[in-house]
């Protein structure tokens, strides 16, 4: 073990004993281009044959997965945020700079589309098809004269291309989406505390569970500073993202990165991903997106840098990430020292108790 084995900057694969390790591989997840399609979640489940996580409606925007679990190794978080919540001053072109300014669908254009379409009724006898959506979304001025002359928008969902008309200013609201994953920490607490050797460091610098070794002690679950790894209930073993170790070994890209349509998930050599990420933050900030920041990119953080790191548009805790995670084993030498002291105190107490005068 090297001097930084428990804490500090380190290249994990050589530290783990690989002599001819390939470059460290990882993910850069750029949340500024995530569209929340969940293709990553689906691709991950499909490739890794992961069971379902229950089919729940959580009432958390479009997030019905909830978080990373034994059965969800990618998780897309959705945050609906009034702009004032983001900490940015309103009225300043920030995260919205360069985006279309209208509401995402126009009531007027939807009604026009519904009423000018060709009569699709099939003669004889069948009435023309009615666009129920447009009808429900408007009030017929003949039935309700008080509603005025034109059709009235009732706030029902409409369908139109975004930004076709600009009849209202853009709202004071933004939507954050982030695909979360195991960080493949440089100093992985899960791996450090694993008592069976089931968790191991791969030649790519990633962290993987060997399912034929794991006996389900659950220690890794409590040790992970990100709450990633989890024990599967009916199976009893711990499971998490493997960074598609099987695909990597065959020169393929992990399934989630392959499926991501916007390249929000970028897979590659960690060193070049870090450069790419630094450039991306600079671009965003020069465009006025002051809230853009990197998370888990630095060797100097509490876990020695993440193999999977992120570009975020708000504080980490907003996405359910710890703001300043520190690997728990950083303090392990101190913990053993304190335990040693307590053990000595214990032995001394017994000696004192029995050596005292016979009373």
């Amino acid at each position, binding site marked *: 073990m090297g001097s930084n084995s428990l804490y500090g900057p380190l290249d994990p694969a050589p530290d783990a004993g690989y002599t001819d390790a390939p470059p460290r591989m990882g993910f850069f997840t750029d949340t500024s281009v995530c569209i929340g399609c969940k293709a990553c979640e689906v691709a991950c489940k499909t490739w890794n044959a992961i069971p379902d996580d229950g089919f729940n409606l959580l009432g958390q925007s479009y997030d019905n997965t909830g978080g990373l679990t034994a059965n969800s190794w990618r998780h897309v978080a959705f945050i609906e945020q009034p702009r004032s919540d983001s900490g940015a001053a309103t009225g300043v072109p920030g995260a919205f700079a360069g985006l279309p300014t209208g509401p995402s669908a126009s009531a007027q254009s939807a009604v026009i589309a519904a009423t000018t379409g060709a009569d699709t009724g099939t003669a004889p006898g069948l009435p023309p098809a009615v666009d129920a959506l447009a009808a429900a979304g408007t009030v017929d001025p003949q039935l309700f004269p008080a509603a005025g002359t034109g059709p009235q928008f009732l706030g029902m969902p409409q369908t139109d291309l975004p930004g076709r008309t600009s009849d209202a200013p853009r709202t004071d609201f933004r939507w954050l989406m982030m695909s979360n994953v195991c960080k493949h920490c440089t100093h992985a607490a899960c791996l450090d505390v694993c008592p069976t050797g*089931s968790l191991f460091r791969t030649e790519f610098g990633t962290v993987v569970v060997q399912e034929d070794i794991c006996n389900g002690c659950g220690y890794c679950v409590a040790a992970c500073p990100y709450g990633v790894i989890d024990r599967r209930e009916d199976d009893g073993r711990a499971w998490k993202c493997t960074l598609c170790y099987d695909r990597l070994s065959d020169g393929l890209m992990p399934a989630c990165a392959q499926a991501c349509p916007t390249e929000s998930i970028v897979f590659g050599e960690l060193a070049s991903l870090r450069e790419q990420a630094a450039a991306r933050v600079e671009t965003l900030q020069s465009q006025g997106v002051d809230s853009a920041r990197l998370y888990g990119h630095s060797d100097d953080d509490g876990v020695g840098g993440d193999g999977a790191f992120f570009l975020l548009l708000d504080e980490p805790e907003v996405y359910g990430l710890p703001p300043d995670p520190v690997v728990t084993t950083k303090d392990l030498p101190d913990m053993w020292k304190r335990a040693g002291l307590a053990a000595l105190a214990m032995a001394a107490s017994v000696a004192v108790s029995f050596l005292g005068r016979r009373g």
Partner: protein
Amino acid sequence: MSRRGDRPMVPKAQFRSYYGRPIVRPAPWTHDIAAYLFTGGLAAGSSLLAAGGQLTRRPKLRRAGRVTALGALAASGYFLVADLGRPERFHHMLRVAKPTSPMSMGTWILTAFGAAAGAAAVAEAASLVPSRLVRRVLPPIGAAAGLGAAVVAPALATYTAVLLSDTATPSWHVAYPELPFVFAGSALASGAGIGLIADPAPPTRRMAVLGAALELYGAHRIETTKGLLSEPYATGRAGKLLKAGRTLTAAGVVGAVLGRRSRVVSALSGLSLLTASAMTRFGIYEGGMASARDPKYTVLPQRERLTEPADGQ
């Protein structure tokens, strides 16, 4: 502000989270682990009691200590294996010896202790064996094994504190300097409890006082000096358990010291110490679990850490 007396010790702090979901994951353990914290400590404490009895020629203490250690050991083994997701693979723990894994170290400590304490307890049955040779050979083996167990016992009693602290569970991790003292004290007090029941000789009373002092001091520090992270130990189920444990420990010590003339009072004091030890373990266990379930205990201390250097500039 409310005028009621139950205001939280720390003012409600503002923080943001993802739909209030926890960030770190609570250990997927059941109360089996809390029970093991107690039985493991009891095994350690009573084997020390037995060794003391053995060296100062108090056969009653020696026998009670050895037999209790074996019983507590068996219970520990059951609790530990039952809590695995794959109990039939428990022996995978013996594939490696990893100093970075307190659970791995603990496995080896428990294995070594188990062999010695088991042999010592079996030797107690020497007088029941018809064979003369066995009756002659067993006691010295038992004596050596008993001392061996006593050497390992302090490690057995304190490694469990490292086991809990070496996690991302906020209130366990932050307690790492004091937790070993709480567990050492609790183990001593429970061993003394067995002694007070079996043979309330003066050493058992002294052991009770010293154990209780360690336990109360450590627990007090954990409950009061960790800021926001002390809160889970002072509130809810953990708060109740730790408070009850403290009361029973105090009662046990007072009873052991003042009731030394009475076998009944001594035995009740011993019982009180044993119950207190169990409650303290369950309280510490519960407190940590509560701190993992609420994201504020993860976010706020980390935020504080991030803003501290900025304030200093």
